[in-house]
């Protein structure tokens, strides 16, 4: 792992959404969407945030972008805290963190031409004006491998993969250091998915971009990430370098996720871990370990005491009580 100071540091980030109800619209509860998430991303590094739907991974991305205000915790960009800045001071820093969304259809304004979509951040940050804008947009179109004459067209004239390229060009426009890819390839066909993933990793090499790659698809993540953070119900349960995580997952949830990744070999023997039950509601998360309701290795302590994320190996952290009980860990099927 690199020892340079991280580009982005997220510290105990929390986002609780108030639940309103009743006659006067009073707060009747909280949705614990993100409940204490800590990680960092180095310059030029890719960190993947994986987990099933509703685990809060997109909320983490939006809180970093300040599209929503975090409830608690800190976000540091290049050694400066940004989560508590007023809008006026945050605005110039927005240039450095950009976003690519999942849906290539709703992420582009249907009534704007491609040129104006890509030029919007350029103009906002005063990075180009007049004739320069067209040149910059043309260069960006080249960067994302789109034909230049697409500039005059409207988004609906493009396919999903091409729209996603437009979205990437917009994110690149202001010269961002970090791009948050919120399920950026999930809505695409497999072949187009591969193209976009390859484009992203090429761009990372060319431009030294850091990526926060939010995804539920471990098979895709394995192809482009340096490190992986696994989220479950608003918390990170395991974070490790890619090789370590895929070769030696420590948290039972990570193991279950990995066992669900399809292997393109019909003869491969697989020990699939099938989780039973549903994800508990983030409105009233279970006490103790949040995963205990579905964990095949659950024991008494899991139901009362919350495991902390702690170092379990070289660059690997996991939040599981089993790590303190090496003997128990080895049991094949404790449940």
């Amino acid at each position, binding site marked *: 792992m690199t020892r340079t100071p991280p580009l982005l540091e997220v510290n105990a980030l929390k986002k609780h959404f108030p639940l309103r109800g009743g006659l006067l619209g009073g707060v009747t509860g909280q949705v614990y969407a993100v409940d204490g998430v800590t990680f960092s991303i180095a310059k030029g590094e890719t960190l993947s945030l994986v987990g099933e739907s509703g685990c809060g991974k997109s909320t983490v991305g*939006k809180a970093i*972008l300040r*599209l929503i205000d975090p409830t608690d915790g800190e976000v540091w960009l290049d050694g400066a805290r940004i989560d508590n800045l007023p809008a006026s001071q945050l*605005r*110039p820093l*927005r*240039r450095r*963190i*950009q*976003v690519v*969304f*999942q*849906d290539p259809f*709703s*992420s*582009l*304004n*249907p*009534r*704007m031409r491609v040129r104006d979509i890509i030029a*919007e*951040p350029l103009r*906002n*940050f005063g990075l180009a004006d007049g004739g320069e804008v067209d040149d910059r947009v043309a260069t960006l179109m*080249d960067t994302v*491998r*789109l*034909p230049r*004459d*697409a500039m005059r*067209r409207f988004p*609906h*004239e*493009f*396919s*999903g*993969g*091409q729209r996603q390229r437009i*979205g990437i060009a*917009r994110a690149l*426009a*202001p010269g961002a250091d970090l791009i948050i890819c919120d399920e950026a390839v999930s809505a695409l066909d497999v*072949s*187009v998915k*591969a*193209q976009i993933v*390859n*484009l992203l990793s*090429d761009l990372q090499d060319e431009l030294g971009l850091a990526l926060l790659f939010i995804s539920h698809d471990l098979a895709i993540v394995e192809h482009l990430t340096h490190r992986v953070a696994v989220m479950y119900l608003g918390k990170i349960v395991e974070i490790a370098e890619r090789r370590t995580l895929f070769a030696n997952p420590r948290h039972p949830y990570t193991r279950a996720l990995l066992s669900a990744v399809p292997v393109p070999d019909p003869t491969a023997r697989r020990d699939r871990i099938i989780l039973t039950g549903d994800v508990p509601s983030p409105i009233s998360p279970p006490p103790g370990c949040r995963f205990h309701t579905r964990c095949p290795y659950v024991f008494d302590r899991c139901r009362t005491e919350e495991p902390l994320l702690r170092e379990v190996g070289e660059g690997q952290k996991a939040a599981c009580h089993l790590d303190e009980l090496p003997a128990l860990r080895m049991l094949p099927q404790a449940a």
Partner: protein
Amino acid sequence: MSATALPDAPVATASAPHVTPASAMPDVLPAVRPRGRILTFMRRYPTIFAGGLLLAVILFIAMAAPLLGTTDPTALAPAKRTREPSMLYWFGTDMLGRDVYSRVLYGARVSLIVGFSVALLASVIGMVIGLVSGFVRWADSVIMRVMDGLMSIPPILLAIALMALTRGSVGNVVTAITIAEIPRVSRLVRGVVLSLREQPYVEAAVASGTRVPLIIWRHIVPNTLAPITVQATYICASAMITEAILSFIGAGTPPIIPSWGNIMAEGRALWQVKPYIVFFPAVFLSLTVLAVNLLGDGLRDALDPRMAKRV
């Protein structure tokens, strides 16, 4: 995908999926097909065409009323009252001997002015209120409760009450009906704004540092225009009907100005013996409302994003 769509880059080969170089994309995009020919338009949007044509005819009648063989619509001729329709009096005369044909044609002016003015004013004011409501959180609940209050009163009763406070004039009729119609538009705009605010392209604009006024102007307003245009046509139609009702009960346009509601009100007493006095303005009112509604239905279908890809 539409026929004008670009072909996506070729599928990556299974052995080594790699970024497709720019050269693999077509260098020159296929030319945009010319469209907008009247015939193509008619075939694609028959309802818009029918409604628009009918409305254009009525608009022409209203504007060219003095040139269409009319006489002074207010000229009294007691000696020639309640004449049946004939070659001389196309739609007959009323109980004061006024030419119904002339009165109906001039009456179109009132209906159209009221309909269009109310549609425009209610849309503009409702849009501003809806935008404020959708963007200023603390103002939202106050504004929306006021709008709920206004909406709980039937629009016609509200218009009658407002007219009772003022003198009868076309301007006051427009004001009264506009006030009654504003809540519906602002509710609609607020709803659209709230859903647009959550759109990823708006979030991307925020992340790209676009300031709020520009976000509203560039990303929100253009995308509310389609539903507002459709709503405006329905408001136009209902404003014409409300105007006729107000005039019919004597709470609208002053009797000196011929309007379809007035003419019908005056012909009401003679309905059983001289039905044509009521019949002709009623037919014109129905046709005008039909034209506007057809236009609205057609626009709704044409502007519906789900239909956007239809070629």
